[in-house]
């Protein structure tokens, strides 16, 4: 799986909601093929934009509380948080250029 740091129900508030930098959370699960497909792309985007956007991942199986709170019904789901609020949602595995276009405002 992706090299992104894991967050959990327990650490979500500290790691994500309190983050000073925009932070994208990748909601994923072990059994989700498209999640596996998109994770190396997220790693690459994280690496190339380390100063602008943090990327972390959360396993929806082990952290159902957060998944439910944010109404996840389809994965991979990627949500960008700014000052504790969801400011962008991207759903589904997409090629790198398409994801970068979706996230353009955070990568500029």
């Amino acid at each position: 799986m992706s090299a992104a740091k894991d967050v959990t129900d327990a650490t979500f508030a500290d790691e994500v909601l309190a983050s000073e930098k925009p932070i994208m959370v990748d909601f994923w699960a072990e059994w989700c093929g498209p999640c596996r497909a998109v994770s190396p792309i997220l790693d690459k985007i994280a690496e190339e934009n380390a100063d602008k956007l943090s990327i972390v991942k959360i396993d929806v199986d082990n952290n159902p509380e957060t998944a439910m709170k944010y109404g996840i019904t389809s994965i991979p789901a990627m949500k960008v948080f700014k000052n504790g609020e969801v400011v962008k949602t991207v759903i589904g595995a997409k090629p790198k250029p398409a994801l970068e276009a979706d996230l353009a405002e955070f990568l500029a």
Partner: protein
Amino acid sequence: MRQLIIIGSGPAGYTAAIYAARANLKPLVVASSVEFGGELMKTTEVENFPGFPDGIMGPDLMMKMQAQAEKFGAEIVYDDVTKLELDGDVKRVTLGDGSVHESLALIYATGSAYRKLGLDDETRLSGYGVSWCATCDGAFFKQKHVAVVGGGDSALEEATFLTRFADKVSLIHRRDSLRASAAMQERAKNDPKIEFLWNKEVTAVLGDDKVAGVGLTDTVDGTESALDLSGLFVAIGADPRTHLVHGQLDLTAEGNIWVEGRSSKTSQKGVFAAGDVVDPTYKQAITAAGSGTVAALDAEHFLASLPKGVIAEATGAEAPAEMADQIGASA
């Protein structure tokens, strides 16, 4: 330059790669960035692929095919084709990262893409209750009522899979009988959680920020009704992915790539097609694999028929030993 590039990494693409790699053609497989492995990556148990009497998970089967292709020297790149130039003796493939790859022969095996219902609210609510992948999203509908639209094998497979999580699965089909195989039908019909809604077409997806239900229209008497739901899984078939070759390869009336007879030869010399992109009828993993074999053998034959020296000049490779011997003998 290479001898062969294969576009696609489903059973057709990987099987072509296995054959071509064993024939020492060192193919490049363009596997796509997020859809590598093709349709089977989104399935669970595959019970009808010969050689696996206990079944095999779709993604595992694809990883095995990939490993088998790599073992014999196929090179795999996880990127998407943005442009194809198929006319002329050299085929040119441009990828998402801007790189351009050239070859003397090309196998096109891009499969097909899910068909949508074509309703406005379907796009708006996609990811918020509308899904095309039961194995990805089914688990979010524990103890909920969901529906599957469609009447083929994939619709019944999704419906059966969803019963693991959902309390109730309605199968919505616009006819009064199913296209699905007898085995799939029997399993679904014997499942107490699956309810069949015959002669119904989904004409609206309802819900503000997530799916709350669907609007149905009876295909026989036109009666309209509504059904409360938490999730809608669309499985109404797929269309061949041909957008990259429009205007370059002939298509059939059904929208598949035209091939000559039982071969994989397209209307363009040196370009071969295999798998669901040529198949309007069978669309099985094993028929796609067989079709990939045909394409690899056709490509191999085509390359062997090129004038002496063309391959060596193009690839910078030395002529194979036996060919060098012949050249030596005739000199």
